[in-house]
């Protein structure tokens, strides 16, 4: 399409003509309008599925909005005031951040290590490189169901293994930390390979002569990794951290499916693994059907992600300045 445009719109030839033929007028229109047309899908889709719901959610959050009621009285910031003093909400914030840290830190370290391994000369390299991505293309629901069974208290493979080495069975759903670990495992299973592949791509862009000079200076493999690879990967690492942050703070499917049975949306009897998105759903839909309050939770989530994103940007600026 772009090629087509350029060949048509060589201006020199056209300018010498007395009046533009209709065909040329069309071409001019094409040239002026088509860029807008090309970018329109994004803006239209963003408008319909991004900006509008965002604004609507804000509007809803300012009302006492029973999902089924016909009247939705305006209550101003009441929902937010209530939310600030809602212990269950803060509990879900802590859960979300806890699961985020437990999943992201080992995930990125592991990804870095795997990428480093895959960056070496080894047999069937492409096979392994592609293989680590397979968990990522598996459906989340399937992953959650399989892991849900692995982490079963009485019938699970993990407790069975623990039993073999003499450790008492852990009730993965009724212990806050254990449930965080279990949910994190699912997240890591899915995303480690993805991050490893991104690290690998960045590693391959590091000039080899850096390693050669380092080797001549007597740096061992670990030193090379720590002093060359990691600093050169800094922007990539930050990218992965941001992407993991956004995904981690919106975690929903894994903990929801992990908690099967009545009211899985609570994330366990004492809300052990209830994330913010689950708390939002619990309030906006069953069993509370309080759309206004749920929307307020959604906006708090938005604010939290924005704060973390700003922290990330500040970190990027500082790190890239430090890198120079």
């Amino acid at each position, binding site marked *: 399409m772009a090629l087509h445009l350029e060949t048509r719109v060589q201006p020199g030839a056209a300018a010498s003509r007395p009046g533009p033929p209709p065909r040329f007028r069309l071409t001019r*229109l094409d040239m*002026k*309008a088509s860029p*807008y*047309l090309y970018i*329109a*899908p994004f803006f*239209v889709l963003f408008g*319909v599925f991004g900006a509008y719901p965002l604004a609507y959610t804000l509007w809803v959050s300012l009302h006492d909005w*029973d*999902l*089924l*009621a*016909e009247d939705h009285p305006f209550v101003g910031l009441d929902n937010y005031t209530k939310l600030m003093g809602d212990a*269950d909400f803060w509990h879900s914030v802590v859960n979300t951040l806890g699961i985020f840290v437990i999943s992201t830190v080992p995930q990125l370290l592991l990804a870095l290590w795997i990428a480093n391994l895959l960056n070496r000369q080894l047999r069937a390299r492409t096979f392994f490189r592609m293989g680590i991505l397979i968990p990522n293309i598996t459906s989340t629901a399937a992953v959650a169901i399989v892991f*849900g*069974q692995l982490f*079963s*208290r*009485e*019938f699970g493979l993990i407790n069975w293994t623990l039993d073999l080495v003499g450790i008492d069975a852990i*009730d993965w*759903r*009724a212990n806050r930390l254990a449930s965080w670990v279990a949910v994190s495992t699912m997240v890591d299973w899915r995303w480690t390979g993805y991050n490893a592949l991104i690290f690998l791509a960045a590693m391959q862009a590091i000039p080899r002569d850096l390693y050669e000079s380092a080797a001549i200076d007597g740096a061992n493999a670990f030193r090379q990794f720590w002093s060359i690879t990691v600093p050169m990967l800094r922007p990539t690492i930050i990218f992965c951290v941001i992407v993991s942050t956004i995904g981690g703070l919106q975690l929903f499917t894994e903990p929801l499916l992990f*908690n*099967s*049975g*009545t*009211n*899985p*949306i*609570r994330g366990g*009897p*004492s809300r052990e693994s209830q994330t913010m998105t689950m708390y939002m759903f619990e*309030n906006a*839909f*069953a*069993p*509370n*059907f*309080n*759309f206004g*309050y749920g929307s307020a939770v959604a906006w708090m989530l938005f604010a939290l992600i924005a704060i973390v994103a700003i922290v990330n940007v500040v970190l990027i600026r500082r790190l890239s300045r430090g890198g120079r």
Partner: protein
Amino acid sequence: MGITSRGRRSAVIAGLAVAALAAAAGCGGGDDEASGDGTITLTVDVFGQFGYEELYKEYMASHPNIKIVERGTGANLDEYSPRLTQWLAAGKGAGDVVAIEEGLLVEYKANPGNFVNLLDHGAADLKSNFMEWKWNQGLTADGKQLLGLGTDVGGMAMCYRKDLFEKAGLPTDRDAVSKLWPTWADYVKVGEQFKAKNTGAAFLDAATNTFNTIVLQTAGDAGGYTYYDTSNKLVVDSNPAVRQAWDTTMDIIDSGLSGKYGAWSDEWVAAFKQAKFATIACPAWMTGVIEGNAGADASGKWDIASVPGNGGNWGGSFLAVPKQGKHQNEAAELAKFLTSPKGQIGAFKAKGPLPSSPQALDDPAIAGATNAYFSNAPTGQIFAAGAKSLKPVYMGPRNQAVRTEVENAVRTVELGQRDPAQGWSDAVANAKKAADK
């Protein structure tokens, strides 16, 4: 000037593009229910097992212009309720006839405008087809709108595994078993005997199920209400019926009788398959659930005895017609057919939900019904006998949310996360919070 005109033109084109895209997006959801030959398709939304398949066939045969499609068969109530609520809120998506569980119905009654008033469709004549309290449950508080027609009630029994009872040296005959536990205290004693024999199985599945059974019984016996009194005041901490049920449940937990399988969870289902518990509180509709979870291998290993304590009702549903439907008249007729005594008998034979119609309960088809899966237990006698004398329990507007909190408090004690006293104060505090939401 040139710039503005160019800008305006591009804006027009961009606008056109937007309109085109929006039009394309808008077309996606077109649904045309009436096809060319005048056939009307009615969608029925259910959860679990309603046992309507044969009835649909019969209805379609007598109404050649109607085609019936059922959705949601086997769905968990926890998945179904929010989905239905979202459809109602969105004004689109719900079936022409929808099943509503009694706990959800009380929430929907607060906004009856979402449903067709079945009294406008000649339902008033059907009043005598239903037990009085079941009929009244379907009415709004002012009695002017009928939201739903009753399908089933949840008359109570106790299902048990004969093989595990035999292993523990307990009687296996259903009459003898019923005699073991006239009261819940006796049930605990039997449980302790069972436990002492180390069969490798727990005595019961989950304390929450047992708690709910007991609270509905004690409430039926006492004031006729549980967490809310009949003036819709939250009385979770002052209603002696709730406290009594709580204490009885604590005794069960204390004696270590519960297998602690979270009700309806994957583990719970697995525990059925592996015969990991011996008894389960068994409203009539639970028989279908047991059969589904325990599977064909366990056929003939289960049996049904009477429930400790005094009868009681747990659950039961209604059929309603959402106002968003396009074929409200036809849908109302179908709902009337499915909830008729004949429809209720058909459903009972298929999947076991106990009729809410006295005529159906009197019918020999029900009185003489047995269930092959449960060692040919005379389910008709067991459930129907108590059904007509059921004492209804009133449910307040936020019953479901409050019940969830109290049951979760039971669960925290069962799992050893809280002691009974802490559990009780959690239950009261969280219930109050949930009621305010």
